[in-house]
């Protein structure tokens, strides 16, 4: 059997990390690494080169948008697929569009999942990206 895929979860809220871990556990065996803030997440992404990054947006020290931009700047990390999770609500709508983020970030994340996260949507998106 091939090696387990590596997933890096970057989220400041331990309960949200536990939620993502639990959802991933339903999809199979993964090597899960967690980081509790953006900076730590960026360092771990460079060190372990995961197959997928689950990235929260609202975080202290370095937020998800900043992390995403940094990831895209480096050759080592620019091709790692990123799923962004966010509870941000804009004044024009209750969710942040991937398109809006594309403008802000220079490029769009591979997927965008709005909080509260629907496990079905999460499973579908992760399966698609990792080719499960």
């Amino acid at each position, binding site marked *: 059997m091939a090696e387990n895929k590596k997933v890096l979860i970057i989220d*400041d809220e331990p309960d949200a990390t536990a939620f993502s871990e639990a959802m991933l556990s339903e999809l199979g065996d993964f090597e899960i690494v967690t980081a509790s803030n953006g900076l730590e997440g960026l360092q771990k992404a460079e060190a372990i080169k995961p197959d997928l990054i689950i990235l*929260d947006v609202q975080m*202290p020290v370095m937020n998800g948008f900043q992390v995403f931009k940094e990831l895209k700047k480096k050759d080592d990390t620019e091709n790692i697929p990123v799923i962004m999770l966010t509870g941000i609500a804009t*004044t024009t709508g209750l969710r942040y569009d991937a398109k809006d983020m594309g403008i802000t970030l220079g490029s769009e994340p591979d997927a965008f999942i709005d909080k509260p*996260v629907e496990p079905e949507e999460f499973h579908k998106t992760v399966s698609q990206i990792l080719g499960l």
Partner: protein
Amino acid sequence: MPETKEATQFDALLTITQTINSHLKLDKVLESVMDVATQAMQVEASSLVLVDEETNELLFHVTEGVKAKIIKTIRMKAGEGIVGWVIQEGKPVLVNDVSKDPRFFKKADKKSGFTTKSILCVPMSTSNKCVGAIEVLNKENDGAFTKEDREFLQAIATQAAISIENAKLHEQIVKSERLAAIGQTVSGLAHCIKNILNGIQGGSYILDLGLKKENFSNVDKGWNIVKKNNLFMKELVLDMLSYSKEREPEYVTADVNEVVKSVCDLMEQKGKEKNVKMHFLPEDSLGEVQIDTKGVKRCVLNLVSNAIDACEESTKGNVEVSVQSTKGKTFKIHVSDSGIGMSPEIQEKLFQVFFSTKGSKGTGLGLAVSYKIIKEHGGNISVESEKGKGTKFTITLPKKRKK
């Protein structure tokens, strides 16, 4: 020495300009404009007529002189009467014998009991449309209106039109500012609620998984997450209510040392969990004070909870809470921590509603609510902070209730 007509009219225009620039409410401005105009023009009655934007009817907004009260109740259709014609065409009309003018609206006289003999009516036009008209009726001593009278009244009407336009612009600005504030509040709240919902969703998912696989540590973990988020929701609603309501503090006579100590006791567990040492320094000489204990407790709780969070990253976190009496009529509560500190940019935004540095953990309401509570007491909150060194919040409150 009797003044000349020109001098009287000049004085009147000067008074009107001063009134318009006096920042009074629009209705007051228009009333005084008409009062001055009626006296300067020496007429029996006068009206300022506006177009109702919804019904398009003509409303006698300000009426002066004989039968003023009855005239005020009259409604006319758009284009009706001489005033209607003036508003529609945007041109002045001077009629010294109304019986010969077919545009004259006789029903108004019938209803009011006033007998109109002569009319001078001028439009009130702003840059893009005519918002109404000013009319003066029956020159005293059966005099006739002249071209000079028309020019004088037109000057007044132009001033009044500017006032009306400015008031409308101001109203629009206030309305759009209010809408923007509502939008910001709604998106701030939506963000908080979405995070809490995510907690509940996550907790119940983990709980379900635990039940399915008979893994009771997951059941326990999931259930605790659900309970915690339920509590967050309660806190959010309470903070929202405290923030939105204009209220007077519910003053009671209390011992501040006890109030502050109860907060420290409550927070001790949180401190232990995060490896933060708590110190409480009471002030023995203070005696009893008059405060809203619930409000002040909520405020100190927010500050102490933030102080513990600020120490999270450091290995030797310290939070010190102290009460201090002053020689004057106030006392102080200090909450200082040895945590991460804040940059000047963050300090500036600190008390703004929905501003938070805690990522998904913060609602951005805690400090805004604390600030409001202290201001309602007539007190103040100040902050000193240095990045990497720590933060000190100082609450200053009057010892006795605000009169």
